[in-house]
């Protein structure tokens, strides 16, 4: 195989890995959208918030230290060496469940019969609030997150692929980040777990019932609000996983919440209600983005990644407004 072709494969592989990350975020969107018809713009910020909380607990930061210092004139930063990773993750999960509960109690409860677009804007507000709150609680500086996952390039893979190159060509093997590989595996497990959960458990059935028809679900005795708390908790969990992966990869910082925006074109491709759609859409966007950056980027000055996904989504929308897996919409009057 020629080095050019191997480079192409490498780009595709890296695209797939990035795509998995997008899928992870998109998955959180789909869960909430399916169960409540809410397009939760705050999903990305939830990932950021989860990652911030995790790092804070792990490193033993004092919450609101900045504010406390400003108000009281003290100089506190840490309360101790921090918690073990597993405990910190569990505690963060508890925080996310609490968050889900509060969101339901304070926001969703009051917006039950509003139009989807109003709810959408409410989640934008929520995203801002959460971002400010997260920063206020844990500080806005870039933090490193380490939960013990392997990082760095895989030498084994480099060696294997070096052997693929045709004789005599200068090829040094493919680079693939082991962290990306673990992320892909974890995402896969997550998807399977979620599918099993929604297909084979009573709660899962209730979730799907609510997704199909709120009123009908209520009439057979399903508690809508309970379901919402569960759904937001689950997507809080998905956000935590996404936050850990993204945080471990590129540090916990504000730009993490911007991946939420990248998840939007993923959803357009995959459809808002389809879990497989979120995965496939994420992979397509990931690969497309990397290929565009590698092959189109140099011609136009780079940074094509910034808008490529949206343009793909836009073009796609014009031909198939319901997404890859969505059903055709019949309008009635």
């Amino acid at each position: 195989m020629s080095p050019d072709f191997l480079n192409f494969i490498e780009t595709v592989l890296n695209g797939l890995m990035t795509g998995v990350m997008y899928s992870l975020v998109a998955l959180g969107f789909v869960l909430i959208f399916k169960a409540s018809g809410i397009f939760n713009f705050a999903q990305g910020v939830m990932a950021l918030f989860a990652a911030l909380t995790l790092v804070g607990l792990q490193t033993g930061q004092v919450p609101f230290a900045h504010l406390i210092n400003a108000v009281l004139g003290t100089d506190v930063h840490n309360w101790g060496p921090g918690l073990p990773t597993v405990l910190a993750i569990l505690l963060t999960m508890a925080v996310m469940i609490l968050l889900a509960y509060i969101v339901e109690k304070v926001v969703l409860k009051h917006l039950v019969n509003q139009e989807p677009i109003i709810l959408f804007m409410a989640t934008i507000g929520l995203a801002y609030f959460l971002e400010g709150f997260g920063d206020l609680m844990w500080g806005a500086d870039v933090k490193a997150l380490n939960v013990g996952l392997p990082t760095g390039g895989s030498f084994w893979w480099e060696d294997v692929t070096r052997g693929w190159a045709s004789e005599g060509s200068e090829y040094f093997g493919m680079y693939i980040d082991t962290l990306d590989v673990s992320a892909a595996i974890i995402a896969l497990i997550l998807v399977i777990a979620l599918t099993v959960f929604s297909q084979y458990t009573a709660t899962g059935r209730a979730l799907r019932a609510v997704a199909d028809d709120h009123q009908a679900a209520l009439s057979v005795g399903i508690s809508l609000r309970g379901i919402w708390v569960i759904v937001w908790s689950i997507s809080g969990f998905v956000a935590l996983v996404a936050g850990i992966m993204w945080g471990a990869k590129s540090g916990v910082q504000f730009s993490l919440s911007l991946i939420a925006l990248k998840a939007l074109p993923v959803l357009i491709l995959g459809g808002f209600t389809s879990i497989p759609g979120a995965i496939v859409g994420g992979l397509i966007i990931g690969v497309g983005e990397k290929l565009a950056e590698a092959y189109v980027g140099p011609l136009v000055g780079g940074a094509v990644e910034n808008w490529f996904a949206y343009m793909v989504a836009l073009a796609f929308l014009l031909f198939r407004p319901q997404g890859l897996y969505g059903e055709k919409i019949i309008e009635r009057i």
Partner: protein
Amino acid sequence: MLYRETGDFKSNYAADQQTFPIKSERYLFWAAMAFAFLVVPFFINDYWEKSVIVPLLVWAMAALGLNILTGYCGQVSLGTGGFMAVGAYACYKLMTGFPDLNIFFVVILSGGVTALVGMLFGLPSLRIKGFYLAVATLAAQFFLVWLFNKVPWFYNYSASGQITAPERTIFGIAVTGATAPPWATYLFCLAMVFIFAWIARNLTRGQLGRSWMAIRDMDIAAEIIGVQPMKAKISAFAVSSFYIGAAGALYFSVWLGAAEPTEAFGIDKSFLVLFMVIIGGLGSILGSFLGAAFLTLMPVLLKNVMVGGLGWPTDLAAHIEIMLVGGLIVFFLIVEPHGLAQLWRLAKEKLRLWPFPY
């Protein structure tokens, strides 16, 4: 008894259709305008101009534009920042390419250029709605900002990649550039916003405005009774982008004086203007002003209290500000989805009945 409509009879439809049908309200409006045009210019200083009033006017202009699209026509856009960038860069190219062209026309033409770009990005709205459209406008946002970053022609190949507004005058008085006096820039912006708010009012009360609202409220029925969806949506995109482009031109040339795309026209600006429209009131001209005023003044106030008064660090104040803005959005959507404009209407209602509420 200041606010009474009793005895304020209308004998023809023209009188019934005017903007302020109630006499006392009309007087109040003109008094406020007289104050803004004739009194404020004598007292305005550099701080008030650069940090409070000109920003307020620029954002009001942008909010008017987004309100036409989102509030009146029901099409959500997250591309406001990108469209403001189009206005700003059009303004820069026109200012540097045609030094003799009056800045008034430069701003108008910048709006025109943005309107064309807006129509282009509005085309998907013919097939898609709601969130889907919001994503399509995100494409505009990211693509446009990228374009102005990457194509040197737009910033005249300057080494820094920045654009800087040269000095331009109206009636011999500078309104852009470093030496422009505060009262002049203020009056220029005020006049622009006044004219275009009046035009927005006219457009929204006539047949075009009704076609927008019909599309917003029930697009299928609207088409069946004779609204052409294409005409209504594309015109909404065009008019809205015109306003946003003009706002972008003022933002760059009068307020900032120099700009760099990623910083000045990022996605956060799109959200800021959207928030103004929500807090102020969707589908309300007055709301655009109230929303812009609220979100311009609140940070200034917060900053003065927290940083100036309490001596807290600025980044802390910034976090609290973001939190408050987010919280307020949620609060408004829950308590009063029609925004400040609706609160104002309710207050008037109360005042009208006062002191005999039953």
